[in-house]
């Protein structure tokens, strides 16, 4: 019961912040509401007893990505982005709303007609042990993930170099 109450609170926070993030006109407010959505999703992970995943979500998303957004918004211009009031055409809002509702109806009908999820197992409220996660993350056997782990380190390095190359000022030739 407590889990259900927590889930309802988190769902209200996530959905409300997501709607505000999408419809607000000021870009810095959108970034702030995105932060609340990310905290809510981290709360969902904690609720699922994936504590490590929630910690990763908070440290990478809320600590890293949101700060990057804020820096980009502050760096781009004093005038343009910070106090930006974006004009949105009404026809575009209607078409976007229509597209979202049609997609939502499609997915909802598929979920309602399909009852494979009724066979859900009852999971006990136990946290996933950390040594199991570490062994699976750095092992090289079956169902172990050292290759994606190494790959993502190389990928992050490539993105660092690419980001610096793209964002730096070009030399005056």
């Amino acid at each position, binding site marked *: *019961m407590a*889990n259900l109450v927590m*889930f309802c609170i988190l769902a209200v926070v996530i*959905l409300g912040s*997501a*709607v505000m*993030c*999408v419809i607000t006109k000021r*870009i810095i407010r*959108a*970034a702030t509401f*995105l932060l609340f*959505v990310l905290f809510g*999703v981290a709360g*969902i992970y904690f609720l*699922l*007893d*994936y504590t490590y*995943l929630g910690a*990763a979500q908070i440290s*990478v*998303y809320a600590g890293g*990505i949101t700060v990057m*957004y804020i820096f*980009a918004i502050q760096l*781009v*211009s004093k005038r*343009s*982005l910070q106090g*930006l009031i*974006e004009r949105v055409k009404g026809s*575009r809002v209607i*078409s*976007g*709303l229509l*597209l*979202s509702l049609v*997609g*939502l109806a499609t*997915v*909802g009908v598929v*979920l309602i007609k399909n009852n494979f999820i009724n*066979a*859900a*197992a*009852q*999971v*006990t*409220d136990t946290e*996933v042990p950390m040594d*199991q996660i570490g062994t*699976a993350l750095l092992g090289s056997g079956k*169902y172990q993930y050292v290759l*994606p782990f190494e790959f*993502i380190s190389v990928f992050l390095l490539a*993105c660092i170099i690419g980001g*610096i190359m*793209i*964002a730096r*000022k070009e030399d005056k030739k």
Partner: protein
Amino acid sequence: MNIPVEYFIALSTLLFFIGVFGFVTRRNLVAMLISIELILNSVDINFAVFNRILFPAQFEGFFFTLFSIGVSAAETAVALAIIINVYRNYHSDQVNSIENMKF
């Protein structure tokens, strides 16, 4: 763990289509990127929930979510670098300003 799995899936579906709505509606590059983050988060919730409730003994969804978080961090960094560069060249941050792809 007595929350039905449908609730989680309904939550992630709603979050996904809120993100789609934002992506279609907004014309600011940073706002579109924020909408993409919403979509990615809803997909991550789905991975974690399916892994936890349907196959609690395995870790595929867990690690997929973990790596997805890392990949989206890298994607955001590169996309923000591109947006800063676009702003520097065009003095605008709307997608309509980038009509020609030549430099």
